């Protein structure tokens, strides 16, 4: 099955428009992250620093994906560093 994957922050510089990824049925968000990293070491930090969202809601890494899910890897937000 395929899922749509979006990246943000400095990861978006690598994949500005996201990716469509083919994963085995039954894969979890963590499985997807490991697959992405094994294909592209520049994404190594995705698993370490990002939270995941599926279909625009935060989820745990153990969540099993469904076909056509939209997965987003959400780096830490910017907080209040250069405005209020």
């Amino acid at each position, binding site marked *: 099955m395929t899922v749509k994957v979006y990246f943000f922050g400095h990861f978006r510089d690598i994949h500005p428009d996201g990716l469509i990824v083919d994963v085995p049925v039954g894969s979890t968000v963590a499985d997807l992250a490991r697959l992405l990293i094994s294909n592209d070491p520049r994404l190594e930090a995705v698993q370490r620093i990002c939270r995941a969202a599926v279909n625009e809601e935060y989820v745990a890494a153990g969540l099993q994906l469904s076909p056509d899910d939209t997965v987003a890897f959400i780096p830490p937000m910017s*907080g209040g560093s*250069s405005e209020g």
Partner: protein
Amino acid sequence: MKDEVHCRIVSGPIDVKALEAYVSGPENGAVLTFVGQVRNHSRGREVAWLEYDAYVPMAEKQISRIAQDAGRKWGVTVAIEHRIGRIELCEPSVAICVGSPHRAEAFEACRYCIDTLKETVPIWKKEVCPDGEFWIEGEEAIQAK
């Protein structure tokens, strides 16, 4: 309070007056407006301008939820806009307006909204500085490509 909220991610200037008008009403004696604007320095670096990026559909959903939660908890009316794209020094990147019959609830609700927004809404900024461009991710500043 209104049951609806006004919450948007916008790519042009934020119309703060329109947000204030949205939350004003004859029953609301207090209107509190928080505006976050781009500063000229950050962690010792000079900042030329900022570029904001968001996961737009999720960010709008999250911001609306924050505004609705605040509205229910404190009985207030809330309007929020966050701008994305290039934003110059002194221009607002985010505005939160809260209208309330009394001021205590307005202060509580407004503080809740901006703190929760900064923690949970998927929006990032890239600081464009004389010595390079940096994505700000939590406490990290990561050189952009």
